[in-house]
């Protein structure tokens, strides 16, 4: 490029104005400089992709809504999403990148509990606000972290007695072999015992197990009245297939805390899934206006291949809006001010109904639902209004111990 006299004058003049502007407008301009950055860490490839995809869609929807309404504090909200590819190592890497290089104002993300425990300390260290929007085993007690998904006291506690009333007292527990499955299995055992039943055995499955034959024989040999399942991911879907193929579908009924999170009812045949019980903080089939509008907005944009819009998507959407309200209330994106605003017990009316931040635990009080699979869809049987995260509040008090960062585990 040759530099002509005219171009030189034009560029220096423009530069001069740009230099002068901050001095003229002063501190008011600082709020205008650049967008507010929202970081997102979700798996869009690998075994957990079907779970991550709708969560990212929900976050995109929330961000679009915020920007359509003029942004936050007059600034645009920019979404920076990294695909963690179902790989824990990438979670650590991208978490550092978001906190240190991109300097985002908040991060929403993490799917498995293993990924959350990999990135939570990173955000603590770099003092970056973190939202974990997935249903999980409960017990995280960390002032920098907000958990908008359900915990066992909100779902398992409803599911187990309901299933035991229907089917009997002897339960066999199967779960995925990592921290979520391990701890959820303990909760299942506790609620089975609390309701006067017996947990015959607990079996854990690594995420890449594909042949469930021997386990199915073990379960038959134990002769349980019902099966409680916390199986996770695509490979584990095969369990339900092989279970039905062995003709056990009608013999031993199943209640699950994870069935449906990766589209199982639509994937499996009617005969393989009918009658399975599940309990979550949201179902795509809810017919409230907020819920139908939410599902329609996502499906209109992303087409028929969109995976099931589960609690994870609803909680992600609600998480972003709760954070946005806190930013508005605080008038800044500064971390402590936003945390304090959230701790006032902020409320958002989302697709699942009213969601309220619990000040002591940084979890949420929210509606939970109990449903049964019928004709490859969920049929919502019962609604439990405004369930508090009692499991975590029994062990966690961030008002008294603001420096706590432990994840408490249940002991049985």
């Amino acid at each position, binding site marked *: 490029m040759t530099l002509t006299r005219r171009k030189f004058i034009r560029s220096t003049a423009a530069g001069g104005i740009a230099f002068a502007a901050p001095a003229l407008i002063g501190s008011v301009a600082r709020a205008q400089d650049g967008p507010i950055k929202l970081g997102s860490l979700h798996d869009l490839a690998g075994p957990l992709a079907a779970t991550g995809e709708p969560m990212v869609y929900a976050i995109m929807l929330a961000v679009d809504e915020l920007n359509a309404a003029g942004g936050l504090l007059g600034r645009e909200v920019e979404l920076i999403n990294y695909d963690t590819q179902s790989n824990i190592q990438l979670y650590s890497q991208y978490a550092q990148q978001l906190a240190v290089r991109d300097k985002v104002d908040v991060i929403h993300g993490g799917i498995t509990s293993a990924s959350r425990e990999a990135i939570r300390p990173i955000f603590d260290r770099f003092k970056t606000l973190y939202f974990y929007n997935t249903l999980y085993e409960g017990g995280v007690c960390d002032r920098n972290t907000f958990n908008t998904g359900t915990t066992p006291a909100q779902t398992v506690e409803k599911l187990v007695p309901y299933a035991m009333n229907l089917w009997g007292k002897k339960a066999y527990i199967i779960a995925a072999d990592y921290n979520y499955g391990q701890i959820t299995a303990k909760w299942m055992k506790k609620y089975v015992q609390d309701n006067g039943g017996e947990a015959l055995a607990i079996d*854990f499955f690594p995420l890449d*197990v594909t042949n469930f034959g021997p386990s199915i024989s073990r379960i038959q040999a134990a002769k349980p009245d019902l099966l409680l399942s916390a199986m996770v991911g*695509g490979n584990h879907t095969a369990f339900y*297939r092989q279970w039905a193929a*062995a003709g056990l579908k009608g013999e031993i009924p199943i209640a699950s805390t994870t069935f449906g999170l990766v589209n199982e009812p639509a994937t*499996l045949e009617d005969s393989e899934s009918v009658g399975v019980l599940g309990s979550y903080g949201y179902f795509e089939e809810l017919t409230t206006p907020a819920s139908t509008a939410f599902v329609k907005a996502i499906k209109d944009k992303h087409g028929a291949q969109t995976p099931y819009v589960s609690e994870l998507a609803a909680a992600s959407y609600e998480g972003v809006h709760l954070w946005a309200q806190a930013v508005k209330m605080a008038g800044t994106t500064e971390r402590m001010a936003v945390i304090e605003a959230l701790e006032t017990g902020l409320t958002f009316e989302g697709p699942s109904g009213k969601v309220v931040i619990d000040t002591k635990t940084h979890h949420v009080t929210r509606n939970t639902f109990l449903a049964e699979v019928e004709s490859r869809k969920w049929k919502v049987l019962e609604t439990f209004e405004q369930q508090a995260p009692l499991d975590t509040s029994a062990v966690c008090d961030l008002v008294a111990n603001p420096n706590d960062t432990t994840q408490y585990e249940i002991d049985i």
Partner: protein
Amino acid sequence: MDIAIIVGLDVVSGIASLVLISAGLAVIFGMMKIINLAHGEFLMLGAYATVLSVSAGVNIWVAMLVIAPVFVGLVGVIVERCLIRFLYGRLVDTMLATWGLSLMIVGGTTMIFGNTIVGVASPLGGFTVGAYQSSLYTPFLALMAILLMTSVWAVMRYTRVGLIARAVMQNPDMAATLGVNPTRVYMATFGAGAAMSGLAGGLLAPVAGVVPTMGAAYIAKAFITVVGGGTSILWGLITASGLFGFINQIAAFLTTPVFGEVILFIAAVGLIRMLPTGISGRFFKGRL
């Protein structure tokens, strides 16, 4: 007693699925000394071909037994023509190339069909042994494994094609001087290996969660079976599948699925330490 029969069936099913998922890999490795890291994706393509044909209204048996192997066999031929044939004799390069290929296939399938799980219901019902139940699909898989092994053996032993294949396998240069075109034999072998993987994928579709990434769950087991078996296609595959399938299923039944996998891998490490050339390298040397 009933439980013994059921566990026996589990063992048979474990062995049969190892034979099926490893056969394609064993043929390609045994005959061409190529390590096909896209093997898991060939299985996945077979499963997808089955699921999509069934949802398009094709009879499930036709989909599993005809469409899946034919489709994946064609894919194999194309892959051999466009990629593998430039890399014969370069072991590390073929590993890298087929690994890249596997990522491409996973990515492409995800783009076209999305990341959701698809599947078909298992076509046969269950049956009862005393107080226990099992799936009829288990003996069916065992039957298919036996049929597959028998036909590989018959083709290799009694047909002219098999004779040429064995000749090229033993000494490609000598075979070439006798008028055999090794390029064509390699192409056909790779296609046949891919077709076997496609068949296995099709047969697994009703008992697996079919997703673009499903290959990863099978490839490790297929590899230890082939490495444990050694270069003899038939005897290596059968003995290694028998050994590992038995250990895995019994251990999973007696302990937990976690230890089932752990014990399997320990057994594999021990075996390869004692027999570095695999079972067939020691006991079935030079046999098919």
